[in-house]
């Protein structure tokens, strides 16, 4: 189906600043080029346009403060149109002809798996700044989004304790939904609960009458909603209209697509989400971040967890390059291997894990109230992305470039 603009706009943001303090001895001169491949049109645009703005904000701040080790940052931005093929085209383009130093790319897990082989092929370095189903063990990737051991190992036991042990999952039918549902199933069973139902919904489906009835028939204590994209978000309105009235738990809603702002209350009442950041987080760091974000982009509808992750990723990259004195990937990874690449950002202090190149997070349990205001009944501090490392992925030793799941762990 037609979607998005066919012409591609490359926006270049090379702001050479006056205060170029060449403090660290850099191997190369000229700007550091950062490729940005994010969906600015199509089904995912609502959740991802803000990521480009967050990266722009960080780039402008970094340039105003003298760049990365004295070199200005230049962004090379392409609109990937929520289309996996575009990711592959543009990933080749930024790595081959634009010759960027690093790429910030991707929202859906399908898009990440579409471009990841290309990053491997050209031996590039990519940041994936999205929460996802976990398990990517790849030296060419740095992941700043939260993963299941951070989002589900906290959320699901809390929900089972609060509401009961019968769980129904509805999930988007692609790698993210399937693998996330596998995590939910595992954690529910480990905690002595029962899966009373599981349904996978093709992307783009917007009519949920039958699904709603299946849920009512199975009588769960709560529903895990792992729905993705604008079309599937129609579920909440339709479930509320049919008076389903069950608490919901999710790793993707609110924190990405700000459904609580878009839908009429009380359709998201009793939705619980584990997220590492949303704009309602009430800390001084968060407030300062929101203030400068809105000063630069006054019309931004919502500052979500991906915006924070993208912003944090820019500063992590800056600190790695300044410590290594080069943009060479192996030199940067040698810095990550030391285990102290950290940043104090909008969501608190976060650090990169050497074994998996994933990030530690403070995880906020966000509850949507009847009037769609947000409260935080619980915060889990400094949850590390431990699963990959414990399962046997160690990027300081070798690079399998694979994605693992609980049922398909690394072979030791």
């Amino acid at each position, binding site marked *: 189906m037609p979607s998005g603009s066919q012409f591609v706009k490359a926006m270049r943001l090379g702001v050479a600043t006056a205060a170029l303090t060449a403090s660290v001895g850099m191997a190369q001169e000229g700007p550091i080029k950062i490729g940005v491949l994010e969906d600015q049109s199509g089904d995912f645009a609502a959740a991802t346009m803000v990521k480009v703005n967050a990266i722009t904000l960080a780039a402008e701040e970094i340039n105003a403060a003298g760049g990365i080790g004295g070199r200005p940052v230049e962004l090379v931005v392409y609109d990937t149109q929520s289309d996996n093929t575009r990711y592959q085209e543009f990933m080749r383009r930024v790595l081959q002809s634009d010759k960027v130093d690093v790429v910030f790319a991707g929202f859906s897990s399908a898009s990440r798996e579409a471009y990841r082989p290309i990053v491997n092929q050209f031996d590039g370095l990519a940041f994936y700044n999205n929460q996802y189903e976990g398990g990517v063990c790849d030296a060419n990737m740095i992941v700043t989004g939260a993963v299941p051991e951070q989002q589900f190992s906290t959320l699901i036991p809390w929900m089972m304790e609060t509401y009961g042990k019968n769980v129904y999952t509805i999930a988007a039918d692609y790698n993210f939904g399937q693998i996330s549902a596998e995590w939910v199933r595992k954690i529910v069973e480990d905690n002595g609960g029962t899966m009373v139902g599981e349904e996978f919904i093709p992307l783009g489906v917007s009519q949920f009458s*039958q699904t709603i009835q299946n849920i009512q028939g199975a009588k769960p204590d709560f529903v895990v909603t792992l729905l993705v994209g*604008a*079309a599937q978000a129609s579920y909440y309105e339709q479930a509320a209209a049919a008076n389903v009235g069950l608490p919901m738990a999710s790793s993707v809603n609110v924190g990405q697509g700000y459904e609580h702002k878009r839908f009429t209350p009380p359709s998201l009442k009793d939705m619980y989400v584990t997220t590492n950041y949303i704009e309602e987080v009430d800390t001084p760091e968060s407030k300062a971040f929101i203030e400068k974000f809105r000063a630069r982009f006054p019309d931004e509808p919502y500052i979500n967890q991906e915006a924070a992750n993208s912003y944090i990723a820019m500063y992590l990259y800056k600190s790695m390059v300044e410590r290594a004195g080069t943009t060479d990937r192996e030199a940067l990874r040698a810095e990550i291997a030391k285990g102290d690449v950290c940043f104090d950002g909008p969501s608190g202090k976060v650090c990169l894990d050497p074994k998996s190149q994933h990030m530690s997070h403070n995880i906020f349990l966000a509850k949507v109230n009847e009037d769609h205001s947000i409260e935080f009944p619980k915060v889990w501090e400094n949850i590390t992305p431990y699963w990959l490392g414990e399962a046997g992925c160690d990027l300081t030793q070798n690079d399998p470039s694979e994605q693992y799941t609980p049922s398909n762990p690394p072979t030791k």
Partner: protein
Amino acid sequence: MFATAFSFLYQFGDAFAFLVIASMGLAIIFGMMGVINLAHGEFIMCGAYVTATLAQKGVPLPLAILGGAACAGIIGMVIEITIIRRLYHRPLDSIVATWGISMVATQGVLIVLGSTMQGVGTPLGSFSVGGYFYSVYRLVLMAIAVGLLLGLYLLFYHTRFGVIARATIQLPRMARATGVDTSRIYTLTFGLGAALAGLAGGLYAPTMTLVPTMGSTFIVESFVTVVIGGGDIFLGAAPAAAILAVIRAGMTAWQGQLFGQIGLLLTVIVVIRLMPGGLSGWILRGRK
């Protein structure tokens, strides 16, 4: 027993209403007029956006929905006069042109109005049968689908406009010879198709996410219904919607949403292989 029967009827009615409401505009523009309108989804989006905007300004929802339909209809007539009119004898070119319109509309709305729009909320609450809760608004949609079919039947078979419109589309030269302003009739008919698409958007706006690409979630179902139905709305699209609704509701209840979609698409493959003229072509075979 009653509860099970009711639940199946409700699911069938829900699928039927969606297929009928989503496809009526396309049935007129594509089924009757023969224009392959890839911008159908964008007329739906237009209706939904106008409806939501009016409803948020305090206009009562039924009036807001009519406003959405009217707005889509007017835009449809303008597009007919400026673009579609030149392409009636070039069906392949009309695909490219309407596809272009659809991209301009989606991207234009994204740039001007942003990536999402505040919803309006489903009115009328819920009721319960045998332990299951159902949305009342969905029953209203079912009634509207039936009403829409009846209304269009009366319009095309029992009014002067209907007779002239059918004459114009079947034999434009003869119609012109009897003094009919055929280009005006084409404009009005296309506008009616666009208005019905806008109505679909308005009716479903309270139940869905409002985003610039929302039309694409209607378009597969619409085309499937019209292709299976063939050229005639009443002998084609209506029974096609009924058959597809049974298949979809049954498959979804049995194996989930994915199988509902597979069932829909398998039906199209089988039907166009066995009846190239669609259901109405098959019913009308030998009658010429």
